[in-house]
């Protein structure tokens, strides 16, 4: 395949950009199962992996795929799986095991309408699942929320690196719109950081150490508690160092809209129109959903008159906005669910409704 020149732009679909970025970030082990609207991730991997000496395996189910990721990660290689909402539910047991065994891996969720089998149009109704309970137990996973195809690429690199640094699972939480749409992108030229996993991975001891066991079963309560407490210390460090967000026209804003992913593109468009009509409105866009930019919202709460969370759900992230605002100013919600995408006109109307007297 022809090498890309430095900064050369190509036009890519979100799903294939995720897959190619993972390959360029050194992932050579993909285990998946088809489901709309993420199937192109698997289809792309099926085409590319054999040509570069990697492994693509279509598992017999999502449960099998996530456990293959567990095995590959335990052997010390970069491993990945992808699915869409119902399939992610099937993977949650495996995600908890990954977290409990301190294993790095990348899980992609291209969300669709839910609950149950739901629909196949875009949604953000898996926010609670991704950020509160991606599996059973006391645990967090890193959750990245890209809003452009370029960010999907960049965040795949970040996600693998942070997952390896802190030895924990990372998720890219996208949606059907991002997965299916096309945008021009370029691939970063950065050197992929190498991690020495010999000390903990089950990759052969070469006679240099006793054999490693990768496991999440600890039957002594005191030992299990200690492990979880150590893990939560690492979580606190991640919250301190790796929370990512973008602020857009927040400084003089009376109203701050909080939105992530594809929805933030719709909100930005509405804000631009509102600003032209002299409404003082801005946006805080979380780029990581765990860790969540609580401090940025707290800070904005010092000077704004209210917040509006816009989501493709019945209102899930709005809980975290309320926790951050802690009753200081009103927090409203607007959204659609089930695969219905809010329009810029609807968001604009909501902004005007809230800022009615403030123009």
């Amino acid at each position, binding site marked *: *395949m*022809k090498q890309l020149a430095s900064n050369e*732009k*190509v*036009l*890519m*679909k979100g799903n*294939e950009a995720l897959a*190619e970025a993972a390959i360029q970030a050194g992932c050579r082990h993909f285990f998946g199962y088809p489901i*709309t*609207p993420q199937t*192109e991730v698997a*289809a792309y991997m099926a*085409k590319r992996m054999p040509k570069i000496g990697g492994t693509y395996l279509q598992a017999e189910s999502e449960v099998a795929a996530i456990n293959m990721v567990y095995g590959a990660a335990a052997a010390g290689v970069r491993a990945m799986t992808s699915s869409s909402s119902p399939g992610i539910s099937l993977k949650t047991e495996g995600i908890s095991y990954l977290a409990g065994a301190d294993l790095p891996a990348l899980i992609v969720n291209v969300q669709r*309408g839910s609950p149950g*089998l*739901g*629909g*196949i*149009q875009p949604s953000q109704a898996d926010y609670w699942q991704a950020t509160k309970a991606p599996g059973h137990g006391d645990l967090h996973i890193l959750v990245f929320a890209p809003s452009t195809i370029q960010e999907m690429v960049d965040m795949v690199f970040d996600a693998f690196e942070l997952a390896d640094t802190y030895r924990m699972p990372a998720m890219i939480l996208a949606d*059907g*719109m991002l997965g*299916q*749409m*096309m*945008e*021009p992108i370029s691939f970063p030229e950065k050197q992929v950081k190498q991690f020495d996993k010999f000390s903990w991975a089950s990759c052969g001891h070469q006679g240099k150490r006793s054999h490693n066991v990768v496991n999440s079963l600890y039957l002594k309560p005191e030992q299990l508690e200690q492990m979880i407490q150590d893990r939560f210390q690492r979580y606190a460090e991640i919250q301190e160092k790796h929370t990512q967000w973008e602020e857009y026209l927040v400084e003089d804003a009376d109203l701050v809209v909080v939105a992530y992913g*594809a929805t933030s*593109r*719709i909100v*930005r*468009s509405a804000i631009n129109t509102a600003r032209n009509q002299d409404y003082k409105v801005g946006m805080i866009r979380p780029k990581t959903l765990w860790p969540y930019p609580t401090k940025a919202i707290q800070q904005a709460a010092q000077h704004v008159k209210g917040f509006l969370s816009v989501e493709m759900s019945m209102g899930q992230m709005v809980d975290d906005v309320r926790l951050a605002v802690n009753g200081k100013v009103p927090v409203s919600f607007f959204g659609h669910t*089930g*695969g219905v*995408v809010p*329009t*810029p006109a609807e968001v604009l109307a909501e902004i005007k409704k809230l800022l009615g007297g403030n123009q």
Partner: protein
Amino acid sequence: MLEHLKPITIIVGHYGSGKTNLAVNLALDRKAAGQDVALVDLDTVNPYFRSADFKGLAEQAGIELVAPVYAGTNLDIPSLTARLDALIESGRPLVIDVGGDDAGAAALGRYSGLIREQGAYDLLYVVNRYRYLTRTAPEALEILWEIQKASRLQVTGVVNNSNLGEITTPEDVADTDTFAKETAESCQAPLLAVSVNRRFAASVGDLLRDRKIYPISIYVKKPWE
């Protein structure tokens, strides 16, 4: 517009090459030229960004839109409609928007016998040099082979739809002419035209004086555009 196309015009290509946008433009242009054209969405692979999304636009223009029964709904079942058999047999002008790659072309294979019987068809291969997996003529040819094998039909023309989405410049398009020429040669089919955003079609025309320019409107958009 693209003149002298046979009554049945079939659009195939790598997914994301711009098939749907081209198909919608062709259908509207043929209708405006007085042909009683129907637009057929044959995409059984991708539920997003497809011809069926333009039902309103087609209806407004008086174009019959033929789509899988469940297109645009939340039902994850690709299905074909019997209406298409009747339309192909009727000899009426058709623009058929096929799903991407060989996976999408498999549905076209189901109709290949019927289409060959009719005789008068064009199979247009849409290429975009800025798509990551089709940046060289050999790569584009490989995908065409797979499409021809799955569809059991032969390409009759190549349309260069190279673009970088919203950031495309006339120079970006002109730069792809050699690629398009090489691709057409290796596909053993004529390079019919370069399809270009109407806004800067004239500028591309200045840069590519010997090439047929097909100005198109951009209908496939994102919710915030």
